[in-house]
């Protein structure tokens, strides 16, 4: 909430805050083969659920206090494409709080066995973006 007040302070009257954050939905992992698209599983983001809730509440508090008003809101998918299982492990190693179950790469390995190269690993993350207009207070 204090951070929002600070942002409002440094914005000119009528300026806008663009807020971009993931939704609570876990990242979805898919395997794209030449003949099919398979849903493999999810990357568990529950470790950051409390942090995310606090962030959402802080944003809502800022709106309730009249610091900002919502001008526009949209939802989309942030898609990451990976070529190999090694890429997937590198991706998982870069996650700060989320956890990739070991079953996911094992399942992909089984489905892509035999040095198959015509596949793509796709990770989808649901995102929400807001444009918030700075309001005068009082």
């Amino acid at each position, binding site marked *: 909430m204090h*951070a929002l007040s600070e942002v409002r302070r440094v914005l000119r009257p009528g300026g806008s805050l663009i807020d971009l954050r993931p939704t609570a939905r876990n990242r979805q992992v898919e395997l794209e083969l030449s003949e099919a698209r398979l849903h493999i599983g999810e990357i568990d983001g529950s470790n950051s659920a409390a942090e995310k809730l606090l962030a959402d509440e802080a944003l809502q508090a800022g709106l309730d206090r009249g610091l900002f008003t919502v001008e526009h809101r*949209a939802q989309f998918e942030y898609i990451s494409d*990976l070529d190999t299982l090694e890429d997937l492990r590198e991706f998982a190693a870069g996650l700060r709080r989320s956890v990739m179950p070991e079953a996911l790469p094992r399942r992909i390995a089984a489905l892509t066995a035999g040095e198959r190269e015509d596949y793509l690993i796709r990770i989808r993350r649901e995102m929400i973006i807001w444009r918030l207009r700075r309001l005068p207070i009082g």
Partner: protein
Amino acid sequence: MAIRGDSAGLEKHYLLDMLGGDAGRILEIGCGDGRLTRKYVETATQAVGIDLPSALPRDDAETLPESTQIAGASGVALPFRGGSFDRAIFSLSF
């Protein structure tokens, strides 16, 4: 081998749509290594990114345009005068 983030370009599309053309002076809070900054910097008169010092770009990181300023600072005590920016960007990652 490769990891291609935002492969459909949707994050860039929506970010630019929300900023609008000619976005003026933009402050990005939590800029990290500039991943998001590179997507909108061309629309800005000037882009300023802040993050905690430990999260800022390394010396060997991909360079940002010269119009971009990066500073180590906290989002709860912004080192700028009031009314300094036309737009602010705040992105959360978990």
